[in-house]
């Protein structure tokens, strides 16, 4: 059995060698790992053709900037080559796959070798160590397990660090709170809106998180949230809440995490090359300017992704930090360069909503999705115009509304608020229908 070393509790770093590299060392390592990754990608016919067409060979990579000669990879590429078309190792070398829900077409599938899983666990352990967690801590994970990477990703990372883990999984707030109290949970991973929900239930149950639990650290992510929301969460529970960034395409959680400074997320540049580009021109933007986050995984075996367009909009805050880590600091996500919405950790495209609404002949083609934050809970309202008044009976109209709600819930896994509105009443802008209005506090 392979034993992974864990440093002494007093050490500030889980992996001091990599975490405290100078910029020069980081870039030298990136060049080497990018070369290896390009070499590995050459074994895949789709990548090989793209790299050949662009005239890229492993030997021609001599600086990090050389990455710009490599073509971008998109979510469409993953879908088009579903399920295993972009794998760079034989399937017999893979030990796990994770998949998106794939409701907008083919799902995206990400393969992992055992080494990929080990490195992923190391990344997550590095993050949790960075915010002060040690093997004596108790880590509770309220993520869904299964295909969603927030479950197993944090699970293996927390185990790697050596904590006692409580794989509570999603939902059942009363049980979550009982576990927290009974097992002396010190760290919790949750989506921000769920933390608010837990706090509400605690209040109803007369539980004071400061007195009745030993909670000291929260890891929050998988859902956009503002600095104000974070402050509120911290004040509610009396703990520090650290922002986590992950995406299944890169592995899952662990890609970036805030240090104790809480001034941007350190993206681990020994694992990823981070670019911020103008989503229109695809040219790099200067540090500090908002653009689309592009990530290249440079230490993955099964399915490295070259210049993957995340569609997340953010910016570089800096490349040094008082914590001693020189890995680039990235701002919290500012929005999307496509029409994807992230609500309570679930990715939703308007086309999914549209597809369901079109199934109802009673409904017209015009609809409006409004995202709001109501008392810290993010909600989706779907207003849809009625095509023909097929009844003048309130009960039948309510039945229609219920059925639309049910089908939408099956599709997007969240229950939206559905409103039937008269024909011609939804807003139109410059002759084009307005489909999504995001009034959540996060992007303001």
């Amino acid at each position: 059995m392979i034993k992974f070393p864990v440093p002494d509790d007093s050490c500030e770093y889980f992996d001091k060698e990599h975490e405290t590299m100078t910029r020069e060392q980081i870039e030298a390592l990136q060049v080497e790992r990018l070369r290896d990754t390009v070499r590995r990608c050459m074994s895949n016919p789709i990548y090989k053709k793209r790299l050949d067409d662009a005239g890229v060979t492993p030997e021609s990579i001599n600086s990090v900037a050389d990455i710009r000669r490599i073509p971008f990879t998109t979510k469409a590429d993953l879908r088009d080559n579903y399920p295993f078309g972009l794998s760079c190792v034989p399937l017999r070398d893979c030990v796990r796959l994770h998949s998106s829900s794939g409701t907008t077409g083919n799902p995206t599938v990400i393969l992992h070798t055992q080494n990929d899983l080990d490195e992923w666990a190391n990344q997550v352990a590095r993050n949790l160590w960075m915010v002060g967690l040690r093997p004596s801590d108790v880590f509770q994970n309220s993520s869904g397990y299964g295909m969603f990477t927030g479950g197993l990703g944090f699970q293996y990372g927390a185990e790697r660090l050596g904590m006692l883990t409580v794989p509570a999984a999603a939902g059942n707030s009363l049980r979550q709170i009982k576990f927290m109290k009974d097992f002396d949970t010190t760290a919790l991973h949750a989506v921000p809106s769920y933390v608010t929900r837990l706090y509400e239930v605690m209040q109803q149950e007369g539980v004071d998180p400061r007195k009745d639990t030993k909670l000291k650290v929260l890891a929050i992510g998988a859902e956009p949230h503002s600095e104000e929301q974070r402050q509120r969460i911290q004040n509610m529970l009396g703990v520090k809440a650290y922002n986590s960034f992950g995406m299944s395409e890169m592995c899952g959680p662990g890609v970036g995490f805030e240090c104790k400074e809480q001034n941007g997320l350190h993206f681990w540049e020994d694992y990823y090359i981070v670019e911020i580009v103008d989503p229109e021109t695809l040219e790099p933007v200067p540090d500090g300017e908002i653009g689309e986050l592009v990530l290249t995984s440079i230490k993955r075996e099964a399915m490295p992704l070259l210049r993957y367009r995340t569609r997340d909009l953010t910016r570089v805050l800096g490349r040094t930090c008082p914590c001693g880590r020189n890995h680039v600091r990235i701002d919290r996500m500012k929005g999307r360069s496509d029409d994807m919405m992230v609500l309570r950790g679930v990715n939703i495209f308007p086309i999914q909503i549209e597809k369901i609404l079109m199934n109802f002949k009673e409904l017209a083609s015009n609809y409006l999705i409004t995202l709001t934050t109501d008392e810290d809970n993010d909600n989706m309202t779907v207003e849809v115009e009625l095509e023909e008044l097929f009844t003048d009976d309130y009960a039948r109209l309510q039945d229609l509304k219920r059925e639309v709600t049910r089908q939408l819930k099956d599709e997007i896994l969240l229950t939206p608020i559905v409103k039937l509105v008269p024909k011609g009443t939804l807003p139109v802008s410059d002759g084009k229908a307005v489909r999504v209005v995001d009034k959540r506090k996060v992007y303001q």
Partner: protein
Amino acid sequence: MTIRQISVFIDDKAGSLVKVLDVLKEGGHQILTSTLADSPEFAIYRVLCTDAERAFKSLKAAGFNVLLPDVLALAVADEPGSAASAIRILSDAGISIRYMYSFRLANKGILVIRTDQTDRAKEVIILNKLQAVSESELSAMIKA
């Protein structure tokens, strides 16, 4: 034996009702009675007006979600207990009412009834000698 009612689907925003009424005004329709229940989000405005079919077409042309359902209009004596007697007859025959509203016209009480069992209701009305008014009878009562 039945008459046609206008049902318009409107939202709960201020000004929705005025738009409907403006169309009726433009067409010179006289409103005999109308009803609007309080309901969350949306409402159905139900109107009995003169020249219902033309009103329906105008509202449709104006882009409204509108329906022209058949309803029963029972004329009863303008005295205590007449509504109870009429409704008991329907009730005893097992006819359930979806909704009902009433108004007074030409010294008569008019009970406007929407049921899913219109054909059965018609039989019961004939057998029990209830007075169901037609659209032309209604017009005559307005002029009287």
